[in-house]
């Protein structure tokens, strides 16, 4: 599914968070959404997932504006994985993944055999089959993250939108997740902090700065030392790794903000 943003703007409590963002994500493409904290990644992702109505501009799925779509109709097209959805729930993991079938079910019906098959496949895909009967509370942060992704897959979406899904994962699970996402054949838009990971697995990158889209294109085109200095305020060196993907080596933070001073133990004199 093609996702198009046309001059999107969104603000909250008088602060503009997303400014005039236009972007086009082609069907089947894996796109990384990059930017420092507060650059508007999460907000843009929520606008594109239909969770926030943009103040200006239009979101289109396959060319059709979603402004008047119901939440249910949107949920049949797009699955969203939030950054930290660590509920204090004691649902079984299988039931949590089963929530992904919600948009396809009548309110009075329970899950049927087809639903259970989809859930079983999603659990299998994320290596969670053995945990299906485990209580949500008993999962580690990484397992929860994977269960949320299984839940999103159980939604059988045309596009997957994920907000920093690698956050709680160890290195192996990060790599496995990125392989899985880029191999689904679905349109994937994923907000990431790890630039090297993004460069390795994404077809294209979108770079946000103060709510504006300042660069879009293949990783080697978007990630340049000058841009990283400007946007992330870091002194970085870019090299090509053995596979030809850009690799980021950080030399340190740049200018203005020096390292935080060592904590003072003595109380200041009165």
């Amino acid at each position, binding site marked *: 599914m093609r996702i198009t943003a046309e001059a999107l703007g969104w603000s909250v409590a008088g602060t503009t968070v997303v400014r005039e963002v236009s972007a086009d994500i082609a069907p089947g493409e894996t796109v990384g959404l990059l930017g420092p904290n507060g650059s508007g990644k999460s907000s843009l992702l929520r606008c594109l997932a239909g969770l926030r109505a943009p103040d200006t501009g239009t979101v289109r799925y396959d060319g059709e504006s979603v402004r008047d779509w119901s939440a249910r109709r949107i949920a*049949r097209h797009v699955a969203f994985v939030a950054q930290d959805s660590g509920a204090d729930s*004691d649902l079984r993991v299988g039931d949590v993944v089963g929530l992904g079938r919600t948009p396809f079910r009548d309110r009075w019906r329970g899950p049927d055999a087809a639903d259970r098959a989809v859930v079983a496949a999603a659990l299998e895909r994320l290596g969670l089959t053995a945990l299906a009967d485990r209580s949500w509370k008993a999962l580690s942060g990484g397992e929860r993250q994977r269960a949320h992704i299984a839940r999103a897959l159980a939604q059988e979406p045309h596009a997957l939108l994920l907000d920093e899904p690698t956050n709680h994962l160890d290195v192996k699970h990060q790599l496995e997740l990125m392989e899985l996402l880029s191999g689904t054949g679905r349109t994937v838009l994923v907000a990431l902090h790890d630039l090297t990971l993004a460069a390795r697995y994404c077809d294209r990158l979108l770079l946000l700065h103060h709510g504006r889209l300042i660069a879009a294109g293949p990783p080697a085109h978007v990630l340049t030392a000058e841009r990283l200095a400007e946007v992330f305020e870091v002194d970085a060196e870019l090299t090509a790794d053995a596979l030809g993907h850009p690799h980021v080596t950080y030399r340190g933070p740049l200018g203005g903000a020096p390292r935080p001073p060592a904590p003072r133990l003595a109380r200041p004199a009165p």
Partner: protein
Amino acid sequence: MPPRPAAARSFAGGAVLFLLAVGLLVGSVAAAVRIGTADVGWTDLARVLGTHLGLDVEPLPPLVDSLVWDLRLPRVLMAALVGASLAVCGAVLQAVTRNALADPYLLGVSSGASTGAVAVVVLGVGANALGVTGGALLGALASFALLLLLLRRSGLDSVRIVLTGVVVGQLFTALTSLVLMASADADTTRAVTHWLLGSMAPARWDTVVVCAIVTPLGLAVAWLCSTALDGLSFGTDTAASLGIGVRHTRLLLLVVTAVLTAVAVATVGAIGFVGLIVPHGVRFLVGPLHRVLLPSAALAGAVFLVWTDALARIAFAPREVPVGVITALLGVPLFLLVLRRRGEL
């Protein structure tokens, strides 16, 4: 023969358990009607029911017949309806506010009801037209209207619901106390206190019929929101991304629980603890999935209140204890037991 899948087995098992629980409720209602200051035998009970259902049986003496048909039966049925209603409201509000301590009175509805009741009893406002029940219902709905007014720009955020509910409840509690202290004599105060603690004694057929219409409707609406309630435990964005209209669902469920609570409180007062402990106990038994939890809580709440009300009638006979006192006395140890078994205490 290949083994049946676990899901099918657990479904069949669940259906059997559910039917057993329905049977237990019917049996409890029948048994509880017999219990009281004057015991009624099974055959007498059958004769009373037969007489009123138009069957050809020999009627009992009018006094006994009236005791069973006009007082006991409506009272026990009311206990079943109110118990089911409070337990489900508690379970729903615990999910909507994502707060384990939520109970049906969290929204301040019961405080509004008591203000309305006190206004009628003490000040005589519309005493003839409304009666205590009508006054309490109006008070409950007024407090809920104030709650919605205060919440109208909040996006129905969980924390805001809890805080605003507490504030509204405090306001109406203060108003009730003010009216009582300023105008009531000792006897009235005692009567109102009895009502505030909750008692099934005022239940009559007219109020039972109202409850018997409103309660099943409310429970059905809540049950149809089961999946949404499951989804809401993962936060607004995740729930919305599953196609759940989060604000509409929250508003609908607030209205349903407020109306159910208002109808219950208006007749029998604010019976505490049922709405808090029954959902937790049932969750411990059947798990947190609302499709299963809500009907189970309804049955468990009904059985629990039928028996606690029977106990309230006979424990200190001939004096009757407010059932709210019994629910708390039984509820606290039960609640502690459940928490301990779940390793949360």
